[in-house]
């Protein structure tokens, strides 16, 4: 079980549109992660040394976690950088490489679209019910909405990544 070979090399990022999407996701993910790290640190220092924890830090950290995950998914999807069991897949791929790629990638897109869809439904539901978080009373729809937008963006980046790889493959074929 491993990552796909070549994963994370960023070779699939050469297309301009995809490069922009990935750079944006990298920037977002980095900002969210730094914010999460600093918030956790400041909260601990504030709590134990100054007896003054950051109000609602847990909720903010939770929201940042979701944002980090879905920013990262956009990049991982574009590069098809996911955990795979590499035992027999190459043998199956050899039988019909193009068909194999279409099936595997379509499946991944379908599942990611499913996740984006259910998160969007959740956001709309939270919006309709005006659900708030417990401590900071932030509308849950904002968080769920942001996460569902990132999930949708990761489907787009996934499709762009597939298109780019297919184009590169057909060029090599020519």
């Amino acid at each position, binding site marked *: 079980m491993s990552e796909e070979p070549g994963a994370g090399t960023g070779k699939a990022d050469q297309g301009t549109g995809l490069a922009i999407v990935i750079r944006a996701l990298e920037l977002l993910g980095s900002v969210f992660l730094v914010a999460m790290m600093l918030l956790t*640190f400041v909260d601990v220092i504030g709590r134990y040394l100054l007896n003054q924890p950051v109000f609602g830090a847990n909720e903010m950290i939770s929201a940042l976690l979701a944002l980090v995950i*879905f920013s990262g998914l956009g990049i991982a999807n574009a590069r098809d950088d996911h955990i795979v069991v590499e035992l027999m897949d190459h043998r199956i791929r050899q039988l019909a490489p193009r068909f*194999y790629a279409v099936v595997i990638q379509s499946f991944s897109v379908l599942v990611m679209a499913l996740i984006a*869809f259910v*998160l969007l439904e959740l956001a709309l539901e939270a919006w309709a019910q005006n659900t708030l978080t417990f401590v900071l009373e932030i509308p849950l729809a904002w968080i769920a909405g942001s996460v569902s937008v990132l999930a949708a963006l990761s489907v787009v980046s996934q499709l762009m990544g597939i298109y780019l790889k297919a184009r590169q493959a057909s060029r090599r074929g020519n």
Partner: protein
Amino acid sequence: MTPALIGFAVLLALCFAGFRVGFATLMVGFVGFAMSRGWEASLAMVGQQDFHDALNYNLSVIPLFILMGVFVYRSDVSGDLYDAAYAALGHLKGGLAQATVLACGGFSAVCGSTLATAATMSKVAMPQMKAFNYSDRLAAGTIAAGGTLGIMIPPSVPLVIYGIIAEQDIGQLFIAGILPGLLLVLLFMLAVAVMVRIDPKAAPMAAPLSAERRARARRGTIPVLTLFIVVLGGIYGGVFTATEASGIGAVGAAVIAFARGHLRSIASWRLCLVEATITTAKIFIVLFGAVVFSQFINLSGMPYDILFFVADAELSQTELVLFIIAIALVMGMVFESIGILVLLVPVFLPALVQSGVDMIWFGIIVVLVTEIGLITPPIGMNAFVVKSVLPDVRLADIFRGIVPFVFALVAGLAAVFMIPPIATLLVSTLR
């Protein structure tokens, strides 16, 4: 139980066929759940489960410890850790291999990644061992096996994931991992000693380390050891939770990296942050799939069928855990640690709890089993990582060199199995 067995069969088929593990697990769980409760209910379940996990405060330890590991990895501290171990053990027979084991243990304690440890130590330790004509088999086998220490020595991502699935305290799991981790270091060192005893030519004596390198190693190692002590000592002393420790650890690692001349440009920050973000996403998509799949498994009644089976068969605690170890060993041939944990633990959880098994001890046992899978064929990821960094070394030599360490791991597993206090002693002093 039949739907669950079909679900497992389909999932295995999809994974073997090369479908991405996280996506395959999620889809099988979604369809399986829908088959008995309908599509609407299944859609709602996927949304609730995944959103709940994505917003789980306790899970924020994963990206923060990953970030800590990336910062440590990028701070080039591995060379100093190796030199410190070299200074301490280099005068022994097979001293450089012993030092490699110790350095792997030390590096993985702050890095947390088995693959990163194996890759880094391949670059750091192999040239030294090559310079003194160590055999490829001993050198590469030691590095590949040493890398696995990261999975047990805290902070460990598999232990976090186990803690979430089995609803156990992550801080306690980290503390429980300390003694088994140290035991494995000792057993690995013993394995090296045995190998050198059998084949003394495999490890000629090395020259002592220069005073300058000793001093540099000392300077470089102290901050990393301090960080490890602060993070784990803080959890052990009840000063902060695992989540809080991860924040302290990440900031501390960033400070160490900065002090060592790294993280001084936006580009280097970006490199670390993006790497940690992507790794986090890859782990979470597997987790999302796992929680959806376990909902389907729970709905199928399989965990309770197993519970009744255990009661009917009058399986003792020991027999039940041995049975699970056997399954985990087989799964370890195919799946990586996270895959095993998310597929195996939910199925047996009710039976384990009902049998009164100490779930902290069981967590250490199951993670130890997954550790064996990292260096045994057909997958043996660590062996392939070492091979990719050291293309001149034959894969067959790496796997042959690993054999004594597999015995050491099995001995460690047997020891923790038969003497549970190895895992629970430190935790009991916490309670």
